[in-house]
């Protein structure tokens, strides 16, 4: 009896690990969203589209300029982040004095435009981005199950990035300015800190994080215009569960929900897509501010 359970668990392990890979993306994306929301009070609906842009820029860098994966990891976030800064400066900044819902609607419109343009250019079926061969070094084998090294790398990088971002926000001077400006922007401005510029850069940073996740995703999910839309709504649910302004909450919840999805995939695969939303409903009933949120 114990043997059967252990045997089943051993077979289930690969799927759970794959869930962790998904969780890495949830964490990275909700991190970006949480940062933007915390600072700007704007729900960046175009986060998924910017994630997709990151993947496409990586593809374009490779196929049009011959710049490979490592170059893309640095360049794509910079390029897409710059694009984000332009959006913030020209459009989003006008909406700060208005109801926050307008920010949601504006970024929703941006998402449609971005997705539409890429769909027109590239069709919707997906372009292949080859997995860089370097990662074969990280290949893992447990018994019959083989985990390609690239997916191990994704989880590691996501953890490091999330941890690093959290450290910057919580433990550095710039991070403290950011946190202060979130709570009392006028006061911080009075101290001579350029708050509008900080907001612009924060948006750019959040977008860059999304694009970074996009580059990571390119070899796994193949590059197609709908890839952001598939993720973004689940990520919204993750952010609601974790607590909207909480950085740590976003990261922890992201990884956790990836794991939960992986486990659900083993026992009841049809429900794995909905389980995140069910959890969200439960959290809303019991702890409306989110698991890590401050009401």
């Amino acid at each position, binding site marked *: 009896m114990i043997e059967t359970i252990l045997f089943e668990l051993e*077979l*289930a392990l*690969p*799927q759970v690990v*794959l*869930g962790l890979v998904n969780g890495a993306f949830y964490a990275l994306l909700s991190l970006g969203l949480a940062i933007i929301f915390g600072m700007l009070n704007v729900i960046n609906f175009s986060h998924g589209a910017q994630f997709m842009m990151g993947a496409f820029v990586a593809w374009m860098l490779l196929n049009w300029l011959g710049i490979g994966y490592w170059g893309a990891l640095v360049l794509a976030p910079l390029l897409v982040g710059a694009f984000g800064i332009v959006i913030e400066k020209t459009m989003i900044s006008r909406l700060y004095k208005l109801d926050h819902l307008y920010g949601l609607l504006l970024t929703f419109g941006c998402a449609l435009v971005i997705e539409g343009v890429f*769909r027109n250019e590239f*069709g*919707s*079926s*997906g372009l*292949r981005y080859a*997995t860089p061969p370097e990662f074969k070094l990280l290949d893992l084998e447990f018994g*019959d*199950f*083989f*985990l*390609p090294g690239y997916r191990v790398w994704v989880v590691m990088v996501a953890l490091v990035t999330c941890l690093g971002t959290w450290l910057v926000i919580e433990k550095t001077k710039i991070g403290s300015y950011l946190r202060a400006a979130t709570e009392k922007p006028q006061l911080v401005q009075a101290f001579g800190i350029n708050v509008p510029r900080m907001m612009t850069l924060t948006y750019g940073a959040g977008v860059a994080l999304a694009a970074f996740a996009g580059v990571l995703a390119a070899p*796994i*999910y*193949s590059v*197609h215009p*709908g*890839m952001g839309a*598939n993720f973004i709504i689940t990520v919204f649910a993750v952010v609601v569960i974790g607590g909207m302004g909480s950085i740590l909450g976003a990261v922890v919840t992201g990884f956790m929900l990836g794991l939960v999805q*992986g486990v659900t*995939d083993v026992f009841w*695969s*049809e429900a794995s*897509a909905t389980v995140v939303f069910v959890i969200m409903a439960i959290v809303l009933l019991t702890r409306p501010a989110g698991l890590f949120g401050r009401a």
Partner: protein
Amino acid sequence: MSLDRRTLIKGAAVASLLPALGAAPFRSARAQAANTIRIGVLNDQSGLYRDLSGPGSTQAVRLAVQESGIAQRGVTVEVVQADHQNRPDVGSTVVRQWIDRDGIDVVVDVPTSSVALAVNTLVRERNKVYLNSGAATSDLTGSACSPNTIHWTYDTWMLAQSTGGAMVRAGGKSWFFITADYAFGHALERDTSNFVRSQGGEILGAVRTPFPGTTDFSSFLQQAQRSRAQVIGLANAGGDTINSIKQASEFRITRGGRTKLAGLLVFVTDVHALGLEVAQGLVLSETFYWDLNDKTRALTQRLGAMPGGVRPSMVQAGCYASVLHYMKAVGDMGVAAAKASGIEAVTRMKAMPTSDDAFGEGTIRADGRKLHPCYLFEVKQPSESSGAWDYYKLLGTTDAANAFRPITDGACTMPRA
């Protein structure tokens, strides 16, 4: 009103709404030119089935119109195309408008079985002609058979028997399916399961993958591996199959030879996208291969450069052959009669044997099933291939009489003429 930024943006917003004024579809009676046949090619122009159908099908149709010589009889033919985006609601809206407003007489191609079935009903209701080349579901000549429809090229039963049969003969008795969750996937899984069971095999399980939109099959492949099945049947097509095979290779699913992958529907365009390194040894069934014989090579030559730089797929060849044959019927019965009743036109097509460079000699059965031989291919190893698009070696042929489901086994309830 001062010309400030806000006014400019407002003006732009209003200007962008102006096309809406021109968009109201007016119901002016179209002067139906009595001698014009209108063909509508409906398929996936931007998604995962674009390469095997798409604008290439339209090109094939235009060649067929040209080669049919119908112009010499004073008949004009107009060909239009549209993208159904693999969505039944989009497809049915397009066809509805095509027939009600634009005077389309024939709808051609329509891959993606869910759309194909929706169009099937619409065309039947309005008594037009439906020449389906792209869809796979054998229901088109089974429970959904229609006197206005001819199902060309291939279907799920044919694939199950040919590819499925080959895998079972090679020792694959236990199966697990990864199925695209729509009409085609279900039909293919069903027909193959029936076939496997009839040969003494067993089905260990199946997992449904959301369609379209799934690009990561790793979790489904893991489930398949967990079942310890000898054969993982890929009941999907196009981009889904490519991703499944690629990821199976990435996850070393077939390592050790204990598990085999059965690509139940694979097109030459898929093999091209995969590359021989990954696809070698794959066993598949098609009814047309550009390099099969002199006639197919000649047709490929005449088709010329295809959109996307591909060689013609069997779906595109089917568009060519079906329209060619339709034009024969039009020439035979006259334009007015052909336009007046789709059932009459299709009945005339069934009465005449077919002959073309794509499929050779063939016939059309009473239930709308086009009959022609089916070929079992194996993908060459890189060393065996002389270059791009030289991908297949022929393993065997099933003749037209045995390639498709016997008419008595389908659930078609059409009165037999």
